[in-house]
């Protein structure tokens, strides 16, 4: 073991100073100093995370005194993350002291800056990911193991406690919860499948139509068909909601041609069909845009030799077009499935989960798991159950997306598994 390395083990930055890298050394020392000074704060934060507070809400001389469980939990988490950062820096500091070679001393400040380039550039991105993405995710997972919910466990009036796996048990064992879960999960999977299937083949149909050699003004047709993708989604959804509403234009037209008005959005089955149709309108252009280039790249002689063999249109479609398009778009299908699985926006903007289902708790007939979570969080403050369902979604979706990403270029280049 080098002397510098040993020194850095004892106190961060000592090794660097021994190596005459004063600026670096002082910065490392500062990190350790600040950490040491804050030991009481760290201890308090860890206590908060462990107990989630002990002082119930009460008044002392007319002043409210209480522990806020959720704030304590968040502060505890932040402390854990900070401590991990310090540990990473500590390990880095030892390695840095070890890797030191004489050559480096002569480099100028500017060169040193350039050598540190990857770290300097990554820091803001990684820090914001750590605190604004990773931290909330861990928080959400932890809430699933507490009883954080209205009306009896809502800070600041009440304390929140760790309850272990109780919420998971309730979700699967208590009828009202498990019914909602089963029904919503079934519809969510059906929805994700149908929505992906229809817009995939809708897009393929449009792409084949526009690519066909028999038609003129291809560009014009393509521009028309791509419009739904260009218009902000929420706008289209809200417009559709109004079109299909009771007094909307669709019913007007039905009445004019002598048919009955239909309850498009207030009857469960109709609402589901309407949602899938709207999703087709919104989603097919995206697939069309991507498939157009794939179709034009299919070698023409494949079709020509099929023609010579006298193959029918359907035969060519199923044996040439579809396999080739399917091969290059499998990741997209998986992505689209995952996206639709969590397509909160469409459900919320068009039906808001309705019509109401009396057998469900806090969910309607067309609610997806994700919109159910939204309702539990924002409207009902059932944070504990919302978190449990979130974890379930993650377990269902994560493998699909992991599968997708292991097939992208970014991943293959890197050989992450070595």
């Amino acid at each position: 073991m080098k002397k510098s390395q040993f020194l850095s083990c004892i106190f961060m930055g000592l090794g660097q100073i021994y190596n005459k890298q004063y600026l670096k050394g002082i910065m490392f020392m500062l990190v350790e100093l600040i950490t040491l000074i804050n030991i009481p704060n760290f201890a308090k934060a860890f206590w908060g995370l462990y107990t989630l507070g002990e002082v119930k809400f009460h008044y002392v001389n007319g002043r409210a005194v209480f522990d806020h469980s959720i704030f304590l939990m968040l502060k505890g988490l932040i402390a854990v993350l900070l401590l991990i950062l310090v540990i990473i820096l500590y390990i880095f500091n030892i390695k840095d002291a070890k890797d030191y070679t004489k050559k480096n001393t002569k480099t100028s400040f500017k060169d040193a800056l350039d050598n540190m380039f990857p770290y300097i550039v990554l820091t803001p991105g990684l820090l914001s990911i750590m605190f604004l993405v990773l931290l909330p995710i861990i928080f959400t997972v932890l809430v699933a193991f507490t009883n954080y919910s209205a009306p009896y466990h809502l800070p600041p009036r009440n304390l929140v406690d760790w309850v272990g796996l109780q919420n998971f048990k309730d979700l699967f064992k208590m009828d009202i919860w498990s019914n909602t879960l089963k029904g919503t999960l079934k519809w969510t999977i059906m929805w994700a499948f149908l929505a992906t299937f229809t817009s995939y083949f809708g897009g393929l149909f449009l792409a084949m139509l526009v690519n066909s050699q028999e038609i003129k003004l291809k560009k014009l047709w393509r521009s028309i068909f791509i419009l739904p993708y260009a218009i902000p989604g929420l706008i289209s959804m809200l417009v559709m909601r109004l079109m299909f509403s009771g007094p909307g234009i669709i019913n007007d037209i039905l009445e004019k041609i002598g048919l009955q008005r239909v309850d498009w959005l207030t009857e469960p089955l109709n609402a589901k069909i309407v949602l899938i149709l709207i999703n087709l309108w919104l989603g097919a252009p995206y697939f069309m845009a991507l498939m157009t280039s794939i179709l034009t790249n299919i070698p023409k002689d494949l079709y020509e030799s099929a023609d010579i063999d006298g193959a029918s249109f359907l035969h060519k479609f199923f044996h040439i077009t579809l396999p080739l398009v399917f091969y290059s778009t499998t990741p997209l299908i998986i992505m689209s499935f995952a996206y639709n699985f969590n397509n909160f926006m469409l459900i919320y903007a068009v039906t808001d989960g309705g019509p109401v289902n009396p057998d469900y708790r806090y969910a309607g007939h067309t609610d997806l798991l994700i919109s159910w979570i939204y309702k539990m969080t924002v409207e009902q403050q059932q944070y504990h159950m919302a978190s449990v369902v979130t974890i379930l979604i993650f377990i269902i979706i994560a493998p699909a997306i992991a599968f997708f990403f292991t097939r992208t270029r970014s991943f293959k280049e890197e050989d992450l598994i070595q």
Partner: protein
Amino acid sequence: MMSLEKNLVISSSRKLNPKKIMVRIILYTFLIINSIIVLFPIVWIIGSSLNPGDSLYSSSMFPKNPTFVHYVELFTKTDYPIWYMNTLKIAFANMILSVILTSFTAYVLSRFKFKGKKITLLTILILQVFPSFLTLTAVYVLLMQLNLLNTHLGLVLFYSAAQIPGNTWVVKGYLDQIPRSLDEAAKVDGASNFTTFTKIILPLAKPIIVFLALTSFTGPWMDFIFQRLVLRSADKKTLAVGLLEMVTGQSNTKFTTFAAGAILVAIPIVIIFAFIQKYIIEGLSAGAVKS
């Protein structure tokens, strides 16, 4: 039917025989029907916005005496200009911050070998699986702790952080395709890492950067989930929340005003889209389609 559709994909001869004419009739029928389906809602909402009345019940698709009164009302009687300015502000800030954060991160991850690279890549990969809005509650509490509730800054910080994992992956995939010999040549000439990035890599990565800029610009126009959660007061409100409330209000009495507001949102976005369509499709494929 089968033999007619045979020609949908490819036709071997250009002669006009009755069969060919039939094929064309069928193709054009499909094209026209599809165009009507696509255009109908658009024409309907434009027509509705020109109706003199207020409600959904009384409006018609082609009003007899069209009027622009609702467009005027948007600016005189509602907070629409405030919403618009707020949204523009958030969208611009998010675009700039996201492009800077993501392009630099992707560049470093694509070009440099350094300690901790593998763990960084894996973290990004795993995080990107988690839909960001499942963390609604946590973000709310976190912003409250940071005193950023009801501020646009809090929203922008969150948006630009949440997009990093997913977009970095896409941009890195694109950068990986750019030959390394180019930046090595620049380094030999004595260019710093920063100059290599801005002078060599960025111009070559233009399509994916434009794609990134556009998606981070248009994102905030339509996300009402976090905006509703974070922005509480009327002067901070955005288009997505404002328009949603116009429609979901029980009375539907603001229907025609909503129509006008919706059109004024859609027009600029569609125009931007039209100009950079090819970048968008290239960007979409870069992230997804197998080569």
